[in-house]
């Protein structure tokens, strides 16, 4: 009886909250996400447990986990101390190569890293990237949050620069810096003689380096927000009770800031795990031996079918990031909180530093910034280079790369494709994102509405390559097949993958407009639908615009689906695929033309991200948090 009454009350509540318009909002969001995220990812999981005859089977999982290529690590029992050993690790951290030149013998230390097999490699790369990004990001955040020195605000903003490009573009730029006759060796070995030998960073270490330099700002932003949100009186109290220095830091400051640091770190872990762009740039080295690249490399069988091996790998990637996401959920709530409490942060007391320490701090920050801006400087120089041998700067500059790219029929078609797909996807994202954000913000009392919130936030933690695999599994051979046209799946993929930016921006706008503004419109006779369009929308327009801009630009720079779809259908490929294509199948021009494309993308990204943040000004903090 009680249950029946509860149910009828629930139904009444639903009828009360949901009018036809809200239903249509809910349905389009659910339908789109079901069709282009849930079903595809479900298929990735289901298909990896298919046998060739169609029934349930662990064949592929078993094959992969026993294949030394993917998982070579074995524990072996020994009969003497330490009785157990880990086998299967190949290669060494570095190799020393000596060769003769005209000026005598030269030594190169090749930093290649161990190869532990595809699955462990992915985890090791993600772990190190997370570790380095966290140490670097937190240290910077701590310095900026706690100390006062001239130019600190400007330096803080400059250190966010890496957020302005994707790893794919950054990797192209950085590669030129870290190879044997790259800029760093020219600078530190040839010119400054600071190094006793040349160093070439390649393979997995190169991936870790690129990712660290591009992802540390995520930890930095999260930690910074957390640190300046720490109530200064808590620290003062601790000081009054006798805590000081490192003890104060360890017992008070760090624990209070930990949720923020953790949130950033977990996000970095997932972004590293799902990054396909960097391994692609370092194709031909051990960098290939990570999950994303292997999925990408194998997704198509020569027969034009989706490889089960790739599907199973995608499933493994999905499961790993799914597990991490359980932790990242904290990130989401934290972010919401941060958006809500705009301007509610404390005016932190910043300590002044002695001149000597200030000097050290400057050295550290400038050192970090030197490396952090290398990828961007690299891309820029490459884009304008005519010739660039083993010298610090290109020997001559030119605009030819841009002219070549823009006049190349295929390249300009790819640029057009990207613009069109991203624009259409942005339209969808705005419609779906505004709908979802509105429902989540305004119908909090409806049971289950948090699930909707989760659904539109979760794409942050879903590896793009897994989405791509799922989309292929679902739609190959249907009218939406990428072999017929690349557009539908790319637009769909951009929409589900990049919608969190719109949702978050709109949601923060809605949370900042009092619900009574909606309600008063109802009382004077406006239906909820009418209120939505004439009252709510005008008030959150800026947030919609800013969110749309971010979603647009992150669609433009999307790599995973873009490259996979592009490979299946060159005619409909996006810009990121063209960069990949030029890097490895291009004729003349080498990296100059892809760098020119990368530079264009980076510039657009810069304009859009800065634009979106200017639009919102103080209305939302840390919108570029990803």
């Amino acid at each position, binding site marked *: 009886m009680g249950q029946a009454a509860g149910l009828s009350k629930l139904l*009444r509540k639903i009828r009360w909250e949901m009018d036809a318009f809200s239903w249509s909002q809910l349905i389009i969001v659910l339908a789109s996400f079901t069709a282009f995220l849930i079903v595809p990812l479900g298929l990735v999981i289901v298909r990896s447990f298919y046998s060739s005859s169609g029934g349930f089977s662990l064949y592929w999982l078993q094959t992969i986990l026993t294949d030394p290529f993917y998982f070579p690590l074995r524990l072996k029992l020994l009969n003497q101390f330490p009785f157990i050993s880990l086998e299967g690790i190949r290669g060494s951290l570095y190799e020393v190569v000596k060769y003769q030149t005209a000026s005598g013998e030269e030594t190169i230390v090749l930093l290649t890293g161990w190869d532990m097999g595809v699955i462990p490699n992915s985890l090791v790369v993600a772990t190190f990237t997370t570790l380095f990004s966290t140490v670097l990001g937190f240290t910077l955040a701590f310095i900026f949050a706690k100390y006062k020195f001239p130019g600190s605000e400007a330096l803080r903003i400059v250190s966010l620069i890496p957020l302005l490009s994707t790893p794919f573009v950054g990797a192209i730029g950085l590669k030129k810096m870290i190879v044997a006759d790259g800029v760093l060796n020219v600078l530190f070995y040839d010119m400054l003689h600071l190094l006793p030998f040349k160093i070439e960073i390649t393979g997995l270490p190169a991936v870790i380096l690129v990712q660290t330099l591009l992802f540390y700002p995520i930890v930095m932003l999260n930690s910074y927000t957390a640190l300046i949100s720490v109530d200064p009186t808590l620290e003062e109290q601790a000081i009054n009770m006798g805590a000081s220095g490192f003890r104060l830091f360890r017992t008070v400051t760090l624990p209070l800031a930990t949720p923020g640091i953790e949130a950033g770190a977990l996000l970095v872990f997932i972004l590293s795990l799902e990054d396909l762009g960097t391994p692609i740039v370092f194709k031909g080295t051990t960098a290939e031996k990570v999950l994303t690249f292997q999925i990408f490399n194998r997704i198509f069988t020569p027969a034009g079918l989706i490889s089960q091996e790739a599907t199973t790998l995608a499933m493994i990637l999905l499961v790993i990031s799914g597990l991490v996401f359980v932790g990242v959920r904290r990130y989401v709530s934290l972010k919401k909180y941060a958006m809500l409490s705009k301007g509610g942060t404390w005016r932190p007391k910043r300590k002044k530093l002695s001149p000597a320490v200030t000097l050290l701090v400057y050295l550290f920050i400038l050192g970090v910034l030197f490396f952090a801006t290398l990828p961007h400087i690299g891309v820029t120089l490459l884009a304008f280079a005519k010739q660039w041998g083993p010298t610090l700067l290109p020997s001559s500059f030119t605009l030819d790369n841009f002219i070549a790219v823009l006049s190349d029929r295929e390249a300009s078609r790819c640029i057009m494709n990207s613009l069109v797909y991203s624009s259409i996807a942005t339209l969808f994202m705005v419609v779906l994102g505004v709908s979802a954000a509105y429902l989540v913000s305004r119908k909090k009392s409806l049971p289950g509405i948090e699930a909707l919130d989760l659904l539109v936030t979760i794409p942050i933690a879903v590896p793009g390559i897994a989405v791509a695999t799922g989309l292929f599994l679902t739609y190959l051979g249907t009218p939406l097949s990428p072999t017929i046209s690349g557009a539908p799946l790319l637009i769909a993929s951009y929409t589900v993958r990049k919608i969190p930016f719109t949702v978050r921006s709109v949601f923060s706008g809605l949370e900042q407009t009092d619900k009574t503004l909606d309600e008063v*419109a*109802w*009382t004077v*006779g406006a239906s909820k639908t009418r209120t939505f369009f004439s009252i709510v929308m005008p008030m959150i327009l800026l947030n919609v615009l800013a969110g749309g801009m971010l979603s647009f630009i992150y669609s433009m720079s999307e790599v995973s689906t873009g490259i996979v779809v592009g490979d299946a259908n060159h005619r409909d490929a996006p810009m990121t695929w063209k960069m990949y294509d030029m890097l490895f199948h291009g004729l003349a021009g080498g990296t100059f033309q892809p760098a020119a494309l990368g530079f264009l993308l980076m510039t657009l990204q810069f304009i859009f991200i800065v634009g979106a943040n200017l639009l919102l000004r103080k209305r939302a903090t840390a919108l570029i948090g990803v």
Partner: protein
Amino acid sequence: MVSIRTVNLTKVFGDVVAVDHVSLEIRHGEFFTLLGPSGCGKTTFLRTIAGLEMADEGRIYFDDQDITDMPAHLRGTGMVFQNYALWPHMNVFDNIAYGLKIRKVPKEEIRRRVKEVLKLVKLEGMENRTPHQLSGGQQQRVALARALVINPRVLLFDEPLSNLDAKLRIEMRAELRRLQRELGITAIYVTHDQEEAMSISDRIAVMNKGRIMQIGTPKEIYKNPRNEFVARFIGQGTFIPGEVVSSGEELEVRLESGKVVKAVPSHPDVRLEAGDKALIMIRPESFTLEPGRGYNEFEVEVYHISFLGDSQMLQASNEVENFIIEVDPDLEISVGQKLKVYAPPKHTLAIKL
């Protein structure tokens, strides 16, 4: 203009019963006030009437029409929110005209009616201001105009004056009452300020923890509180606990000090029998300084005097009990002085505990 009736109206938020089986009836054109401490459920009640919250139990009727499940925008209520809730992206004219545009009123008529209502609330010529260019009082008037212009069936006010300064508050009170009376619209007014409630209302419902404690005219509520909560919440008084020793038209109540006083039940509905616990309440102005009857007399020592201009409030005690006594402003009196005061039995109220 409608009458409003609620039957067992209930609204629950999680564990909190914000409105608890409220049944009451508000008459045509009445100015009805819900009065109670903060958090007692006044806003929730009002929002349920407006259709902004779903009633969990009970029914709401406008005249004979059951509107319990009717969406807010069809109810024809004009609501003035505590924070005014003016739309920041519209100027004064558009804020007020919005409800008329929804109703597809012709442009000319909209202009005329907005002008009229602006005159009514004394904001002529302010059409083009944006909300943030207005003072709190002006914003309040715009919110009122926006609610009035649609000729609502009922006006709902949620502490509309609480954000204004004291002087303006008193002016606006009279103003609101004048408008409501002129327009003849049924109004429900919510406040936690008992003085405001007393001065503005036809009838008051005193609310506590989601329940109605008493409904009555300001005078009734003041003179005949039904229970201790109402007695203590409204006005001031001297409170002395005791036990009924004899019942009837006039009660006899033995105070804790052993003294027996003559009293009457605080409210016609209150029944007290010998042996019941009771609380004696005497309003400050009920005391006189003319003893000599031999009963209901208290000997007290004054320990604080507040001079209020038209009267003086004395705080006094007799070691066991505390007294608040109003005396003539011309009376010469000083702290430490002993007084003998008398409380007539008909003003000595016995409240059932």
